[in-house]
């Protein structure tokens, strides 16, 4: 198994600050877009912004870009299980139709 044995990578301060600025800008986008009448796009934009924020936090703050493949895989697992839980539950509730009695 190959692993890097060099000195630990130190992330430059400006990268953290840029990510914070991006997170706050994304927060402004979600708050601002929620006030506009966009219909079905409102929840889509909000969810997309949340996913982008999460990826930024995980990639930089949680050092996922420097992590081993195994760690990355395990860190994705919780989210994958959650999407299965919500996806399958919705597949049930969204496809229910009232069954009229046959008599």
């Amino acid at each position, binding site marked *: 198994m190959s*692993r890097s044995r060099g000195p630990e990578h130190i992330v430059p301060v400006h990268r953290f600050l840029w990510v914070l600025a991006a997170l706050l800008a994304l927060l402004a986008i979600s708050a601002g877009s929620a006030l506009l*009448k966009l219909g079905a796009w409102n929840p889509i934009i*909000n969810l997309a912004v949340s996913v982008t924020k999460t990826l930024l936090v995980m990639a930089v*703050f949680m050092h996922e870009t420097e992590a081993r493949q195994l760690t990355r895989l395990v860190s994705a697992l919780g989210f994958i*299980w959650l999407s299965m839980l*919500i996806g399958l539950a919705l597949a049930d509730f969204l496809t229910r139709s009232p069954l009229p009695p046959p008599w």
Partner: protein
Amino acid sequence: MSAVVAVEQQYDDPVQQREAATLGMWVFLATEILFFGVLFASYTICRVLHPIGFAIASRRTDMPLGTIETAVLLTSSSLIALAVRAIKLDNRRLATWLLTGTAALGVSFLVMHGFEYFHEYREHLIPGIDFMQSGPQAPAIELFFCLYYFITGFHSLHVFIGVSVILVLALRVARGSFGPQRHTTLELTALYWHLVDIVWIFVYPLIYLIGRSG
């Protein structure tokens, strides 16, 4: 004095030991994701079943305060990331201050949330204790606020635990328990804090932002 890490016998070296600890932390965080995930799944189904009631209920929450709380948590996440960086560079003084700042932002989040709860109490929006709403959407509003208290309540509990651990770590950093070779505990706590932040990143649009444009 620089803290030196002891390598347990099952590991080859400190790097492998640290990687194993990080992996274990992520397994724990996956269980946390599913803990909150059940609440998010219930929320999704209830919102699909009662879209209008949820939109009306969401408008009763305090969006400006929710937005400030989100900004506070995002900032605290960057502070703890900087604290881990500082300890890797052996800057214990800076790390102590950054950890204290993170905890202070966590406390301010809890105080703001306390004000929100108090406001909702005065508006008779606490199901089971003091809930007085009328109209055809009242049951859906009650459902929304039930989920609201469970989700934000458990989240606040996680923030409280995080703040307590971070304060203890700030004290230990100041005493010189951590250094460039020994900071796994700090890194794992930071991972926990970032996850608490990520949970809130999803809570914010789900609780505060629906039905705002209508």
